């Protein structure tokens, strides 16, 4: 689908490129572009982070990105170009982990599609994050189960005060 660009970018070869994302989603029909960029930040849950390693199951990740794009297109019901790229490998502080960019005729569509897409990338794509801390320790992040049966069990259980429906922060 030429209006949807998806990529897994090996950080050893190149960085993610916001300008390429903007170029891809630009179009004479479009007045609004929204772009989300996720970067490695220095704190998480109170620990000092020095870097993050991303592990991806690439073929399914790319298929998931495509499916997310098609879902966003149906959801907003307007012409749209969408760009999703996720990094793979060992990232340092400040490096870009993910870019989602959307071009649409009007801004509301761009914001909605961009938000929908980044939420879906975070909750549905087969990607795993290992944080490295300043003390030399490392940990795989608590994540979001892709297992239908488990998701249902989580939905049925109460989660205290957390807003996120499946009981973890991300």
């Amino acid at each position: 689908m030429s209006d949807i660009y998806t990529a897994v970018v090996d950080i050893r070869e190149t960085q993610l490129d916001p300008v390429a994302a903007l170029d891809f989603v630009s179009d004479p029909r479009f007045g609004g572009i929204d772009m989300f960029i996720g970067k490695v930040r220095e704190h998480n849950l109170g620990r000092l982070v020095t870097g993050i390693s991303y592990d991806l199951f690439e073929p399914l990740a790319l298929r998931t990105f495509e499916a997310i794009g098609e879902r966003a297109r149906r959801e907003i019901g307007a012409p749209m170009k969408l760009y999703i790229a996720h990094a793979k490998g060992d990232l340092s502080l400040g490096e870009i982990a993910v870019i989602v960019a959307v071009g649409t005729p009007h801004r509301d569509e761009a914001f909605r599609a961009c938000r929908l897409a980044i939420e879906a990338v975070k909750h549905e794509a087969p990607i795993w994050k290992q944080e490295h801390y300043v003390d030399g320790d490392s940990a795989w992040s608590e994540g979001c189960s892709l297992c239908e049966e488990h998701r249902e069990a989580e939905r049925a259980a109460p989660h205290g005060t957390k807003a996120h429906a499946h009981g973890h922060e991300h």
Partner: protein
Amino acid sequence: MKVRIRLFGALRDADANGYIELQVPEHCTIAELRELLRDHLRTHAPHISAGLVQRSAFASDDEILHNHRTLPENGQLAILPPVSGG
């Protein structure tokens, strides 16, 4: 039949090869495979929690395979622990 299960994220610690091979019955379901894998890990990788396997999904290159599904004919699978992209 023999299946090869690719490992990702926290489950990579289960085997340094990056995959686990298991002998499983023909027409095995994903639910049955999950039990077999749990038994295998209890013996060969006791540091991996059974809860993590329970919360993980199985997938082919193309899609998530839920518990009622049978194994892909080529025996190639991936096990996906809870995801944390972005």
